């Protein structure tokens, strides 16, 4: 929240001296280990269930619980890739996966670019209303996006008029990628501006000043100096926003609709639950397809993600 800044990662604890280690062992006794193992098992079971079910043939899924697979894990009839083939082709999940990419990547890059320029201006440029405008951004951090859905949808489908004069043209953005990029950019901006301004504002002013003296203009300072220095903060927000947009159902459902060419994986999942609610072999493989990329991003960039969350904010 407001005190949060993107911090350096906590230093790895130095190897403890002999005495400490013995003591640590005493404190980390059986109670600690057993509690942790129990919680880990509880937390892992659901994901394990999806993973196992998604690789089992339809018959097996319908006649035995997924946990029974442990009784004969190497049975030849126990495993199949067929579910994934069907989910990708007939379930439209291949298509939905591509759409999710087309929604998520720009929806991550656009707010970051816009926010970085704004954060630079809020930190290092003089203009009227600088403080008040930033306070407004802080206030917008927690606005529930439910507040924005109806007006934006109407803006997209019929434009807006004020006192009978058109102030926003009808661009029929409903159902288009541009429409959802802008919506996600809008909802993600307050947090992005807030985090990046905290970071960019705390860069040493001597660097900026000396670049100015060397004759660099604002655009050059921003692009050549500030952006490279802000990579940790940018990465943290990027991962946060990526996972958020990829996993979002509400905005995608509202702006891209519940069916059609452009639906994303979360919406496709919901459709599948509605239309083939009992076909667990398909539901689970579809669910796993939707999880694959975020899990990959999460494991690859965990360090940054955790840092971004620790810097986290209350987002609307």
């Amino acid at each position: 929240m407001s005190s949060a800044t993107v911090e350096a990662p906590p230093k790895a604890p130095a190897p403890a001296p002999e005495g400490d280690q013995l003591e640590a062992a005493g404190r980390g006794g059986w109670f600690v280990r057993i509690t942790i193992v129990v919680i880990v098992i509880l937390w892992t079971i659901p994901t394990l269930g999806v993973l196992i079910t998604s690789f089992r043939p339809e018959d097996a899924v319908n006649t035995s619980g997924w946990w029974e697979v442990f009784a004969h894990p190497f049975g030849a009839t126990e495993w199949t890739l067929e579910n994934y083939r069907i989910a990708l082709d007939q379930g439209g999940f291949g298509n939905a996966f591509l759409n999710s990419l087309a929604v998520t990547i720009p929806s991550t890059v656009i707010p970051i670019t816009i926010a970085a320029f704004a954060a630079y201006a809020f930190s290092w440029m003089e203009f009227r209303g600088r403080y008040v405008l930033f306070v407004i951004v802080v206030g917008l951090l927690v606005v529930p996006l439910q507040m924005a859905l109806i007006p934006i949808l109407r803006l997209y489908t019929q434009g807006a008029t004020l006192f009978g004069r058109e102030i926003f043209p009808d661009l029929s953005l409903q159902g288009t990628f541009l429409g959802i990029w802008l919506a996600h950019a809008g909802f993600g901006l307050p947090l992005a501006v807030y985090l990046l301004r905290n970071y960019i504002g705390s860069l040493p002013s001597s660097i900026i000043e000396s670049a100015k003296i060397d004759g660099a203009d604002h655009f050059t300072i921003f692009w050549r100096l500030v952006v490279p220095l802000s990579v940790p903060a940018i990465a943290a927000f990027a991962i946060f926003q990526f996972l958020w947009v990829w996993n979002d159902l509400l905005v995608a459902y509202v702006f891209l609709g519940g069916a059609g060419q452009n639906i994303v994986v979360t919406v496709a999942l919901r459709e599948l639950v509605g239309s083939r609610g009992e076909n667990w072999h398909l539901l689970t493989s579809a669910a796993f397809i939707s999880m694959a990329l975020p899990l990959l991003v999460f494991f690859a960039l965990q360090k940054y993600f955790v840092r971004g969350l620790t810097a986290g904010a209350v987002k609307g």
Partner: protein
Amino acid sequence: MLVLLLRVLVAVAVPVATFSILWWTFEFLRDENANRFIVVGVAIAVGVGGVFVLYWGMNRAVDLFPARVRESVRPYVFVGPCLVILAVFLVYPVINTVLISLKDANSQSFVGLDNFKFVFTDSDMLRAIRNTAGWIILVPLAAVTIGLIYATLADRLRRGEAVAKSLIFLPMAISFAGASITWQLIYSYRPQGFGSNIGLLNGIMIGLGQEPVKWLELQPWNNLFLMVIMVWIQTGFAMVVLSAAIKSIPDEIIEAARIDGASEFQVFRRIMVPSILPTIVVVTTYMVINSLKVFDIVFVQPASAETNGTVVVAERMIRWFFQLNHNGRAAAIAVVLFAAVIPVMVWNIRRFREEEAIR
């Protein structure tokens, strides 16, 4: 003179050209029959490259201004797009939603506070408000408690702390929609003669010689079962943030307490918890706001939320907007949600101003 004219021409032509190219690609993206790979590729290229080019073009355009005004205009080029988007996508909608909430189903005429009267009298709405109250109390409570205990314990592991933490954290990367399907494998129920029960809980019930239970139709407990899904997702977040806070407590303080003979539980209660209290407050607030807006978990359930009594406020809003086509009521529900977060908004701004005063 001619050179200057040429420069002006080029500088005007570049933004115009980029803008028309962008516009043309958007038209292309509307084409339903185009090859998906190309559409997606173009979408990503335009979405990613387009924004930067627009800024670059605008910056070049500002260079043409007379030197006197140039530098007072430039900040607005940097901050302008951000302000425009915030105004269009957040500020305008907030005002507009309040207006719509005072109008009828099709936003034709004003109906006063009728929609709000509906929000606080309709039986499903009242149940949704009660349920949401349960969500915002129980989910943060459970997630923060488990997260705090886990963070404290994992901190004492000599090996495997990172692995232990990422396993708890992993559900954070899964969507609510995916999580709902995941948890069906725990809660699923099938009546006699419709295949064997594939939900783990009913598997256990049968193993214990009991009748299988329709967990998700078991009112009012089914709400609790859905909350478990949210707790499962959010605990990792609480744990990671709290763990970072615990690690920042100076070792000397804790060691000193131990030397003075404090038990481990006393160290936890009297030193750790008070030291990280500000972080606990922030994490809890975040979770309360998230639970207030919970929607996906309930919305993805195959059975109707009304008959199961699992309705929540944010889900009601989408239902009234899309399926029951009543703009006024949907907007009124959104306004109620907004009113609930206003205290947090004020608190945020106040804290920010205090910090700025110190800076």
